[in-house]
């Protein structure tokens, strides 16, 4: 994984805007627009695992959906292995589907209740036109990869007969069965009990270690992101605020929002600070984000330039920060 070969995944000012208001409003062009993703730029090397961290409504899930082409970008470019993902059709799209997969958040909803586990895992194989003879063997191999006990006993069973942890492993097995090169996991453990979460997270780490697959892990929980990803991108109201090695961000967050985020995470032992958070109250409203830097209305260190102009990314050692406090030097 040297720095010279081209990035596997590249986003260049990617945007995902949703018009709201009736069709009439759209016709008149006066429809208000929700900017779920508002100009996101970052790259992923082959084999890298990156966390997309942020609160609900920050655009992390929408970014994930654009990467696996569940939604088409409405602006900018989303590239996988040099190809613009939004324009793929026909055979190219089918090939893309076998190389890029998504692990869904809610295992209880991610499987069709009427399908047996075999049907669930056979579906991607059918789509990739893999001969029926090979199905059995590949299904068993995928289930072994995600550490599902003796796989055979699950084959004929139905989703409602399995526990949350087992279901999430089946969801992962389905995503990995075609041996994709890039995988997006959207808060895969947030619906599971804590004691079961660790098991699924460990499977995720082992799969990455064993297959070297490139991965994006979407979450609102910094502690989980830290456990799985060596690099983290922090998002706020559809934009990136900070991007860098996870350990550095946890130890020394630069952007005021990241600082508040890190300070707000409670830890499971008694001696932790109860100091008030360095952030204003107020809820981010994606329908009408503040002008300039979208965090300025809650930022303790905001000054006049923040309301006028959106900050441009600044590189500080191995970190990128989008904040006027730092882009003064350029």
């Amino acid at each position: 994984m040297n720095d010279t070969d081209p990035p596997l995944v590249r986003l260049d000012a990617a945007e995902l805007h949703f018009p709201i208001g009736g069709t009439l409003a759209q016709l008149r062009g006066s429809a208000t627009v929700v900017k779920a993703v508002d100009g996101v730029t970052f790259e992923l090397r082959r084999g890298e695992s990156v966390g997309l961290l942020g609160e609900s409504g920050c655009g992390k899930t929408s970014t994930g959906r654009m990467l696996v082409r569940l939604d088409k970008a409405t602006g900018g470019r989303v590239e996988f292995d040099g190809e613009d993902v939004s324009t793929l059709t026909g055979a190219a799209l089918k090939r893309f589907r076998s190389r890029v997969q998504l692990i869904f958040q809610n295992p209880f909803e991610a499987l069709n209740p009427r399908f047996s586990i075999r049907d669930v895992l056979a579906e991607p194989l059918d789509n990739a036109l893999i001969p029926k003879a090979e199905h059995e063997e590949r299904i068993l191999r995928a289930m072994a990869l995600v550490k599902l006990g003796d796989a055979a006993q699950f084959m004929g069973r139905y989703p409602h007969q399995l526990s949350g942890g087992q279901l999430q492993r089946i969801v992962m097995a389905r995503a990995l069965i075609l041996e994709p090169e890039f995988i997006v996991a959207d808060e895969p453990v947030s619906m599971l009990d804590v004691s079961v979460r660790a098991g699924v997270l460990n499977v995720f780490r082992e799969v990455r270690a064993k297959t070297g697959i490139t991965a994006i892990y979407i979450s609102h929980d910094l502690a989980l992101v830290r456990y799985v990803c060596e690099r983290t991108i922090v998002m706020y109201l559809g934009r990136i605020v900070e991007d860098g090695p996870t350990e550095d961000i946890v130890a020394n967050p630069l952007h005021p929002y990241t600082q508040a985020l890190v300070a707000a995470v409670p830890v499971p032992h008694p001696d932790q600070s109860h100091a008030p958070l360095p952030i204003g109250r107020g809820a981010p409203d994606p329908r009408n984000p503040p002008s300039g830097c979208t965090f300025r209305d809650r930022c303790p260190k905001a000054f006049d330039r923040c309301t006028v102009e959106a900050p441009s990314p600044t590189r500080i050692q191995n970190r990128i920060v989008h904040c006027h406090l730092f882009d003064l030097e350029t």
Partner: protein
Amino acid sequence: MTEPLLCLKDLSIAYRVGTHDTIAVEGATFDVQPGSIVGLVGESGCGKTTLARSLTRVLASNARIAGGQAVFCGEDIVGLSERAMNGLRWREIAFIPQSAMNSLDPVYTVGSQLAEVLIRRGGMGRRAARTRSEELFEWVGIETNRLGDYPHQFSGGMRQRVAIALALALDPKLIIADEPVTALDVIVQRQILDQLRELRERLGISVILVTHDISVVAYVCDRVVVMYAGRVVETGPMAATLTAPAHPYTMGLRNAFPDLASAAGELTPIEGSPPDLANPPPGCRFAPRCPFVEARCQTDVPVLQSYEGDHLAACHRIAEAETLRKRAMASETWEVPA
């Protein structure tokens, strides 16, 4: 030790499913001191919400209190008549639900729902209720002009603040909060938890906080009650219980929780899943998943006994808690032979 505000003795709650009774909570025993926050911790299905909700005596249609006592300010609310219990509701015991969204009536303004409680339950006049509502909104940090807004116009965090204002309306002695911050983002969660701490410090209100997140317990609770499969397995002061747990389940929970403050250690899951409460295993219900299980664990039910002062645990090997705790740290202890 002052007279406890609430004292639970062997409280049991059963659900009738068809002809069969499922015991969702069995023999729950713990105290709540005045002006203190007690964390009721456990995973899904352990009965923590059922237990907390039963203290309001508003149970699901097929649920009933099967036994035990709940002495609140000297009166056993289990035996109280419906009229007497209703007298306590909201005036003495209030409730904050998990997602305030559908716990607020969508067709009334937030202000009128606040006034409804103040006037019909608090006996206030219309104008007094108005000023009191504004006071409450200022206290929880919402602009008073938003009293005229409807529930759907509030964000998650703001709705939770409205729920707190509602709970405070009649200055209750006890507030039961059922996973109040679970659905919130981490920054708003912190602000709501700070407000719960203010309830205790400035208003001396006791809170029973139901949660599955021991980090939240560590941040805000004075004491903690750990539940597993319908039974209380450990209870004690928060600091002692979290740093020196005496029950294997609490030890296991600690390993499963990622800790941002310390180095990124290995997370260890507790293999297997909680028992089906319709026909629970005999003896200790954690036995099937416990790495320190012994023969007697599968036969006789462990009883809550003191490990250190008011730090109790229900485990046959409580005496060896010190050594078990060290062994529990290592992830190999929890690995189930493949």
